[in-house]
């Protein structure tokens, strides 16, 4: 809610604190000087200077100290008075003064003084800190490294750590941090009363081993990976990526080392003998939005997709904003535009369409069965094999029986395969004169996901005109399918809108006039032009694709029409006969059989040795359908049923979009000013030169890049990862700008600590659970979060860590916690996303279909499984500052608004949770109100109520008991929210009154806060 009620703890004090700390020590270039240059000067005097005709660069020591002509130097070490940089900052001459006034940038007097001091001290330059490999500073024996570094800093500030948090606060804090759920009262009591030597460590081990751990950790990775269940642009229809989401949960639960976690997601498909799981992992780079809007230029979006992958990869692993180098050399960090496109070229060769499919996934994708589906598949394949083998054993007798049967076929017998035959029309040729049409009725109605075939004979007198169609001619924009001749070429149209939502094809060769042809047109339901085949007299003909952009269903009511109409203006002249439609995509052999002009009786009489393969196949099929005995038919039926069962099951197996590498790699060009249609020089795959080189033997593909990302020499990946984990536990990263470790990013609050953690992480096999345990075992984490007014003044943001973390829970935790304490949470892991309660109309008002809330357990799953529609995100999540999944987001937002209050008070999910929490408290604590209150608080906060809290609750209870006692209807109304049943043995007035108390508890600041 704009401006109003926005709360942000002011940072000024923190900034001053950090700054004063700086001045107390000798100035350090990276900490004290580089930020000034970077933020105020380097946009012009930096990597992009060359494009502006500027010689001086302040991001490079050689340039900053070089002779600029006439012996003038920007920086003369030890001689501030000779340093031009100071002269230009201080000159009263406005025309000369830096920064130029039109930029609006100002360098403060204090900053200029710091620069002067630094120059006087010798102007010692440092490489940007995050580009220097981290090293472990020494930590005294027996000391926890985190506490050592934090206390070192605190003592310099004259501060002392806070006392440890009490065990109740601590177990709630750790449970929320490691599992996203509050502890159960029994777990709390066990911990509080545990007199063993290492009770806290045992709690951590238990939490780290809990399956809930992965759900808690995965959701932040989903934010970073911009995971969603829809495509994100105009219509924003569904996609299916949840198999990737489940891969993440599974990998985290198995504690996959972070380096492998990275390699599989960036390049799992390129690993030797890549497993399905490793292919699924690469969905990471396909979570970006995909545009299916009519009229987009595909090349433009192909570029956006690859750019999004580069941006996400570099933010998540490198903490660098390389996207800035898309249009020009990076203005702050040493990444040239050419280097950007070198990175880009790792990600732009997967053979995807520029215009994504509107509904569902767009290639490349793989079928990714779940474990259950896998076993079902194995079973179906086994039964198909069994059926085929059983059939195979009959081959000998089949051949004999066919020979016998053939003798019984009369010379005038006629037959065509009837498998999945849907309609047969025009048995005798019908003549069309260019005026008359034949409305055949409601036949051959198919849609964009159906497999079907149309076969017929035809003789055209003009080489032009409509053969047949099933177009909805009521609309001014005809939609449906149709076949049309133009200059002898057969045109096939499967269209919702001919302009931009259709498959349009034409045969390369023309049909001759005045001769009979057999035509078969087949479609495999793929929604791609490649799924359409044309057979002319049994021979496949090549097609020109005029448009391959079918997005929506072309199925229309109406009828099948021959000879004219359908939106074309020329009608058919000639004859059409023997029309058949099949609800399957006929194969080449089928088409050939249909085309054979011979009747069954004639084919049978061809001597066996002279029969063509098609004729042999034709007769065998005819025998099966006409002459075989019951046992053969049964065996065939079993094969067919097994095959159909397998095929039907394969249809429901979820797919997931993945990365694949095309064999042929077209050149990648630098795009001038980032524009897709302005290619510059060709570039080769390579990593930025300011960072370490590719590992020896690394391949020139994503696998090589992935190995480079997790190379021990990479100064960034471990730091960036460790910092994000720190941010999750402490609320703010050691580097506050978790997304930017470049020159414009913040200086770490505890550089040695960050480096120690990063090195320790790598030294211990990139073990994520171990890292979590290291952080949570520290006294720093275990401090009480209560704060004195003096400390709050000095360090409002708690960057110095003189107290424990205290901040509002992330969105998903607020909801998951309520479900858990109410006993409603369904802890099933994985599966398709679910739709919990949502006010009606939110989707349809935006113009995008209806939201149909799920029922039963779908309402009570953890929020990580909530269906994420990009253009209408789940309102609760959006209101509580969740990342919006449009693009990579690694920093957590935290606001405090009235809309959040309305949600927590009035949203059915929370009213139902309050009702269920009240019910639990009543049933589990018995009749005594104090015990009930105690129980409710224990469930939610791991502690009992304080006296003042209890007084507020009692007052609410008494008021509500009184009101509902006199207005039982209101009690019934309050108890009616939510689908879950209530225990009707509880008196409704009592239940309703306690529901208001439970609601109040769920709204407490302490409850939505990690303390």
């Amino acid at each position, binding site marked *: *809610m*704009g*401006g109003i*009620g*926005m*709360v*942000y703890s*002011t*940072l000024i004090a923190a900034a001053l604190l950090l700054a004063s700390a700086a001045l107390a020590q000798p100035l350090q270039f990276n900490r004290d000087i580089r930020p000034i240059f970077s933020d105020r000067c380097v946009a012009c005097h930096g990597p992009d200077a060359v494009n502006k005709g500027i010689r001086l660069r302040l991001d490079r020591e050689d340039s900053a100290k070089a002779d600029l002509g006439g012996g003038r130097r920007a920086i003369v070490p030890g001689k501030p008075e000779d340093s031009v940089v100071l002269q230009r900052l201080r000159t009263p001459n406005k025309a000369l003064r830096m920064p130029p006034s039109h930029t609006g940038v100002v360098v403060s007097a204090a900053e200029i003084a710091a620069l002067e001091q630094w120059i006087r001290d010798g102007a010692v330059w440092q490489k940007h800190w995050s580009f220097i490999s981290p090293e472990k500073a020494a930590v005294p024996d027996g000391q926890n490294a985190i506490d050592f570094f934090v206390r070192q800093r605190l003592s310099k500030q004259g501060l002392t750590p806070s006392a440890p948090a009490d065990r109740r606060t601590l177990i709630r804090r750790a449970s929320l941090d490691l599992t996203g759920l509050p502890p159960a009262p029994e777990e709390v009591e066990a911990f509080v009363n545990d007199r063993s030597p290492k009770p806290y460590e045992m709690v951590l081990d238990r939490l780290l081993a809990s399956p809930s751990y992965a759900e808690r950790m995965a959701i932040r990775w989903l934010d970073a990976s911009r995971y969603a269940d829809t495509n994100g642009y*105009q219509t924003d229809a569904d996609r299916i990526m949840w198999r990737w989401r489940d891969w993440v949960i599974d990998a985290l639960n198995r504690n996959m080392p972070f380096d492998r976690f990275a390699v599989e997601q960036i390049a799992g498909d390129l690993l030797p003998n890549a497993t399905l799981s490793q292919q699924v992992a690469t969905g990471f780079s396909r979570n970006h939005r995909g545009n299916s*809007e*009519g*009229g*987009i*230029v595909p090349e433009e979006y192909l570029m956006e997709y690859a750019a999004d992958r580069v941006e996400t990869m570099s933010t998540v692993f490198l903490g660098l*904003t390389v996207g*800035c180098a898309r249009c020009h050399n990076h203005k702050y960090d040493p990444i040239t535009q050419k280097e950007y496109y070198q990175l880009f070229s790792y990600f732009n060769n997967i053979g995807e369409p520029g215009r994504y499919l509107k509904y569902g996934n767009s290639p490349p994708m793989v079928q990714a069965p779940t474990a259950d589906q896998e076993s079902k598949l194995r079973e179906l394949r086994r039964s198909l094999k069994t059926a085929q083998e059983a059939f195979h054993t009959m081959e000998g007798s089949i051949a004999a029986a066919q020979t016998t049967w053939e003798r019984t076929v009369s010379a005038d017998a006629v037959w065509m395969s009837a498998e999945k035959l849907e309609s047969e029309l025009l048995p005798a040729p019908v003549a069309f004169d260019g005026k008359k049409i034949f409305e055949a009725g409601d036949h051959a109605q198919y849609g964009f996901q159906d497999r079907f075939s149309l076969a017929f004979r035809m003789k055209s007198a003009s080489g032009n005109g409509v053969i047949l169609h099933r177009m909805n001619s009521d609309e001014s924009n005809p939609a449906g399918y149709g076949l049309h001749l133009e200059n002898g070429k057969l045109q096939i149209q499967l269209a919702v809108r001919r*302009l931009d939502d259709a498959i349009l094809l034409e045969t390369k060769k023309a049909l001759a006039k005045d001769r009979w042809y057999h035509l078969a047109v087949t479609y495999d339901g793929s929604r791609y032009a490649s799924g359409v085949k044309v057979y002319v007299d049994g021979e496949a003909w090549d097609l020109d694709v*005029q448009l391959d*952009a079918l997005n929506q269903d072309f199925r229309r009511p109406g009828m099948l029409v021959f000879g004219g109409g359908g939106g074309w203006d020329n009608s058919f002249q000639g004859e059409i006969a023997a029309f058949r439609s099949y609800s399957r995509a006929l194969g080449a052999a089928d088409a050939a059989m249909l085309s054979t002009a011979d009747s069954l009786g004639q084919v049978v009489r061809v001597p066996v040795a002279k029969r063509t393969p098609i004729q042999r196949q034709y007769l065998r099929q005819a025998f099966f359908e006409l002459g075989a005995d019951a046992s053969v038919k049964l065996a065939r039926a079993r094969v067919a049923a097994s095959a159909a069962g397998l095929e039907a099951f394969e249809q429901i197996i979820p797919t997931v979009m993945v990365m694949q590498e095309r064999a042929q790699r077209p050149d990648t060009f630098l795009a001038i000013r980032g524009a897709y*249609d302005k290619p510059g020089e060709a570039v080769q795959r390579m990593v930025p030169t300011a960072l370490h080189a590719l590992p020896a033997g690394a391949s020139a593909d994503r696998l090589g890049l992935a190995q480079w990302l997790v190379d021990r020499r990479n100064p960034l990946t471990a730091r960036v990862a460790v910092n994000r984990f720190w941010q999750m536990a402490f609320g703010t990263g050691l580097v506050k*700008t978790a*997304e*930017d470790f470049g*020159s*414009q*990013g913040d200086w770490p609050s505890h550089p040695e600590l960050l480096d120690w953690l990063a090195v320790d992480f790598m030294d211990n096999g990139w073990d994520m659970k171990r890292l979590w345990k290291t952080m949570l075992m520290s006294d720093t984490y275990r401090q009480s*979060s209560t*704060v004195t007014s003096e400390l*709050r003044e000095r360090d409002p943001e708690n960057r110095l860590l003189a107290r424990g973390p*205290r901040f509002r829970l992330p969105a998903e935790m607020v909801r998951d916690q309520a479900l858990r304490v109410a006993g409603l949470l369904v802890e099933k892991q994985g599966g398709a996303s679910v739709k919990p309660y949502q*006010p*009606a109309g939110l989707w349809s*008002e*935006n*113009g995008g279909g209806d939201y149909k809330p799920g029922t039963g357990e779908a309402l009570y799953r953890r929020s990580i499984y909530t269906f994420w529609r990009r*253009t*209408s995100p789940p309102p609760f999540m*959006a*209101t509580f500052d969740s990342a919006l999944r*449009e*693009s990579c987001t690694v920093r957590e*937002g935290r*606001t*405090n608004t*009235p809309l959040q*209050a309305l949600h927590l*008070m009035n949203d059915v999910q929370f009213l139902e949770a309050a009702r269920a929490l009240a019910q639990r408290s009543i049933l589990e604590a018995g009749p005594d109100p104090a015990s009930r209150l105690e129980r409710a608080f224990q469930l939610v906060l791991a502690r009992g109520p304080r006296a003042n*809290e209890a007084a*507020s*609750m009692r*007052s609410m209870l008494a*008021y509500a008991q009184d009101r509902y006692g006199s207005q039982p209807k*209101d009690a*019934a109304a309050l108890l009616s*929210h939510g689908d879950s049943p209530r225990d009707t043995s509880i008196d409704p007035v009592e239940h309703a009154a306690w529901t208001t108390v439970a609601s*109040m508890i769920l*709204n*407490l*600041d302490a409850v939505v806060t990690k303390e």
Partner: protein
Amino acid sequence: MQSRRNFMSLAAAQSLLAADNSLPHFAPKAKRVIYLFMYGGPSQIELFDHKPRLAELHGTELPPSIRQGQRLTAMTATQTKFPLAKSIYSFARHGQSGAWVGELLPHTAKVVDKLCFIRSMHTEQINHDPGITFLQTGFQLAGRPSIGSWLSYGLGSENKDLPAYVVMASAGSKIGDQPLADRVWGSGFLPSSYQGVKFRSASDPVLHLSNPAGIDRDMRRHFLDGLAEANRDQQAVTGDPEVASRIAQYEMAYRMQVSVPELTDLSKEPAHVVDRYGPDARKPGTFAFHCLLARRMAERGVRFVQLFHRGWDQHRTLPTALPTQCAATDQPAAALVQDLAERGMLEDTLVVWGGEFGRTVYCQGPLTATEYGRDHHPRCFTMWLAGGGIRPGITHGSTDEFSYNITEDPVHVHDLHATILHCLGIDHTRLTFKFQGRHYRLTDVHGNVVRKILS
């Protein structure tokens, strides 16, 4: 309840900028904005940009010298002919200013002396989603803050009981043609508290505004009193000022439970006032209803009110579709301007009318006496502005005789943004937020205030 002031100091501290960032940067002419977004791309050729020569050129090919190889949407890229299509609607000059307005907008025609037409708007975007995203955020891809978010971030709220940025979208059958996304009024990388709050035509204009069945206002008051008491105890124990802020947010929620229904209740609005907004003005969810609400919000200090009306995408069947669009929007928009003027509010309220691009002079699909259509056209389109800070009764910029290319005073989307901010007392180059190491602006690195249209 704190605030933007604190937030600004945060931003300032973050960047350690010593520049004077106090806002507004200079005396504003407008205190608030009502932005009528006509989503889909209204045709400038039928509505505002009168091109009489098209009558004689009707049906002839667009000269290649005019098209200049411009990129086309994939919808007409395969079209082999580009026949010029005249407007089948007549034009006349109106008011003292003599502004040209097409016959489909008779009510707008009556207030032209209060409007400033910009006929020379242009954009780079040729498709709806990137087009609206560009107009709303200054960038074609998702992720940047919308205009309203920038304004609430920069200027804060003018009231205590309502959001600073409110969004309303007309209901109706055409809404599926241009689906909207919440991010269009999103806050991008700004804190989510600056995002637009959508007022819905449902019984709860704001999500979860009403107390649930079983809890009345008295009980809610009692509930909030108890909650505040318990929370104050929490604050005493923890020392965290964030708790006080939470208490304040709950109180604002409570006030909104009254202020929002009062706002949307038109029963005290005089009949003659409602009537002037047209026959739909009493129907919740209509553009007319929303225009009236927009005025009421402006009165109550909502900083940025944005209306979305969809269905302006006349690729085909323009002669049947465009009159419907105009009928739904013409009278309410004109009434809004007139109503604001009569209340003396137009002086400090900026009203903006327009879509995300214009439409082509050449026909898309069949061109007959009664049927034609137009594709998206980014190279010129018309918008109008009125009120706070804008010179009334002028027409700015011009296009060639095909309404294809701008011939005079081009106004880019970034220029429009710079101008809107200027009217509110903001130097668009100085309203920044540091994200990913960059000081982002609504106008990116572009934008010039269109001084010729300032009052």
